C-alpha cells in the first residue's frame, strides 16, 4: 500500500505501513516492531540524543526517533552490527554514572537496566568506572535528585518544559561535565511539584528523580521488568504485566489486632 498519505517500509525483511510525517519510531511502534530507546518517551518531543534507537536506513545509521519516514526505506534494526552499537552505548552509560542496581530503588523498573538485560549485557566492558561524585539534591519535601544516576536523556527537561510549562530542568555544562541542573540553587526553590509530569515514574528512565516515601513500593517479582522484556508491550500491543504506579496498600488499623495478652473476650490472660 503506497498512496499519497502512506508509505511502505521494510524493516528487517518485514513490510510495515507508515503514515507520511511519522518518524521511523512512531511507524514501527504502531506496527508492533520495537526499536530499543532510552531518551525517547511517548508524549515527549523526540530528541535523538541517546542513540540507542540507531538503525540503518538504506545503509546509513540514523536515530529512529527523529528520522521521518521516507519512501523506499530499507531499515536494519535487529542486526548483529546495530545491536553491538547499542550494547556499547548502554555499557558506557553504566560506566559513566553510579549505577549500583542493588541499592537503587528504581531497580526492576529501570529502563537502563532493562535495556541491558534485553541486549544481553553480562560481561565487563573495557571501560573504567568513572565514579562521579555529584551532589544529591534532597531539598524538596517530596522529591530528591541523585544526579549520579542520571543518563542525560533529557526526558525531565522536555516533560517540565512542554507538558508542565515550568522549565524546572535544563542541561548545564558541556562534554563529560554535562549534567542536569535545576532552575534555582536547589529543587526546593523551583516551582517543582510532585504532581508534575516531569516527576512521574514514566519520565525518569533511571533512579535519578526519586519520589520520597515511595521507594521500593513493588516487591521483587512484581516490578515492571521482572517478568517481561522491555518493549514487550509494543511488540505484542498488550499492556504491561505489572503497573508502574504505586498500589495503595491498606493501612493497618491497630484496632484489628487486639493485644496479645488479651483473649477474644478482652480478658487479660
Amino acid at each position, binding site marked *: 500500500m503506497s498512496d499519497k498519505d502512506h508509505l511502505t517500509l521494510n524493516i528487517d525483511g518485514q513490510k510495515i505501513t507508515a503514515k507520511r510525517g511519522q518518524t521511523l519510531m512512531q511507524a514501527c511502534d504502531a506496527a508492533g516492531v520495537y526499536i530499543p530507546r532510552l531518551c525517547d518517551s511517548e508524549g515527549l518531543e523526540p530528541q535523538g540524543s541517546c542513540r540507542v534507537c540507531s538503525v540503518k536506513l538504506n545503509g546509513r545509521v540514523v536515530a529512529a526517533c527523529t528520522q521521518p519516514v521516507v519512501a523506499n526505506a530499507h531499515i536494519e534494526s535487529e542486526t548483529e552490527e546495530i545491536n553491538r552499537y547499542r550494547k556499547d552505548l548502554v555499557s558506557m552509560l553504566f560506566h559513566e554514572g*553510579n*549505577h*549500583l*542496581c*542493588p*541499592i*537503587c530503588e528504581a*531497580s*526492576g523498573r529501570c529502563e537502563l*537496566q532493562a535495556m*541491558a*538485560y*534485553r541486549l*544481553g*549485557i*553480562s*560481561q*565487563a566492558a573495557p571501560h*573504567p*568506572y568513572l*565514579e562521579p*561524585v555529584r*551532589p*544529591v539534591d534532597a531539598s524538596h519535601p517530596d522529591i530528591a535528585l541523585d544526579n*549520579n544516576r542520571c543518563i542525560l536523556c533529557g526526558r525531565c527537561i522536555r516533560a517540565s518544559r512542554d507538558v508542565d510549562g515550568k522549565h524546572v530542568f535544563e542541561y548545564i555544562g558541556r562534554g563529560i561535565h554535562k549534567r542536569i541542573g535545576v532552575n534555582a540553587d536547589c529543587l526546593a526553590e523551583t516551582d517543582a511539584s510532585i504532581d508534575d509530569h516531569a516527576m512521574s515514574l514514566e519520565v525518569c528512565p533511571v533512579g535519578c528523580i526519586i519520589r520520597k516515601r515511595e521507594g521500593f513500593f513493588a516487591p*521483587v517479582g512484581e516490578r515492571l521488568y521482572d517478568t517481561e*522484556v522491555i518493549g514487550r508491550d509494543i511488540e505484542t500491543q498488550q499492556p504491561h504485566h505489572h503497573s508502574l504506579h504505586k498500589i495503595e496498600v491498606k493501612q493497618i488499623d491497630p484496632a484489628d489486632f487486639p493485644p496479645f495478652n488479651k483473649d477474644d473476650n478482652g480478658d487479660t490472660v
Partner: protein
Amino acid sequence: MSKRKVRIATTSLAGCFGCHMSLLDIDERIVDLMAIAEFDRSPLNDKKTFTRRCDIGLVEGGCCNEDNVHVLKEFRKNCDVLVAVGQCAIMGGLPVMRNAIMHSEDPLRECLDEAYTTSKVLNPSKQIPNDPALPLILDKVYTCAQVVKIDYQIPGCPPSGDTLWAALTALIKNEEPTLDYALIKFD
C-alpha cells in the same frame, strides 16, 4: 588419559557471602558438580591456602582493605580463569557507596568518624579499630577488575543458583559463559 577433576577455588572479599550461599542454591546439582570438580581453597571446605594450581577461581566481593588485595592477587596467580561473581566484585556493590562521600577533603576519615566516633551507635571508647591484626582499610573500594585481570563476570546480587550453574558448567566445558535473558540480573 584419565581426566582429572576440574579444580575450583572460591573466596569472599568485601562481600556478604550471599554469592557463596547462592552457589549452594544449585541444590542437588552439587552432586553432579562434585563428580567432575573438586574445591581447593574455599570457605566451603575451610581450606585457607591453595594446595595446587586451580582451573577456575570464583571471587565474591570487591577490595576494601589490603587483605582483599592480597587474596585477590593470590587468586590471580593460582587460577587459570578468574571470575568476578556478583555486583560487589564487578562494580563494588554496597561497599562502594563509601566512594561517594562528598564535600570532604578526607572521605575515608569522614566515613570512619561517622561509623565509630560521631555516630549514635553504642561505642563507649569512641575509638576507630586499629589493632595490628586488622588489615588496613583502603582509601576507597576497588572493583576486582581495577586490581587484577578478570576473565569473566557473573552479574547478580547475588547471581541465582541457576545463573551460577549455567556459567560454571560452561566454564568447566571450556566454553564462553553466555547467559540467557532470564539469568541476567543486576540486583
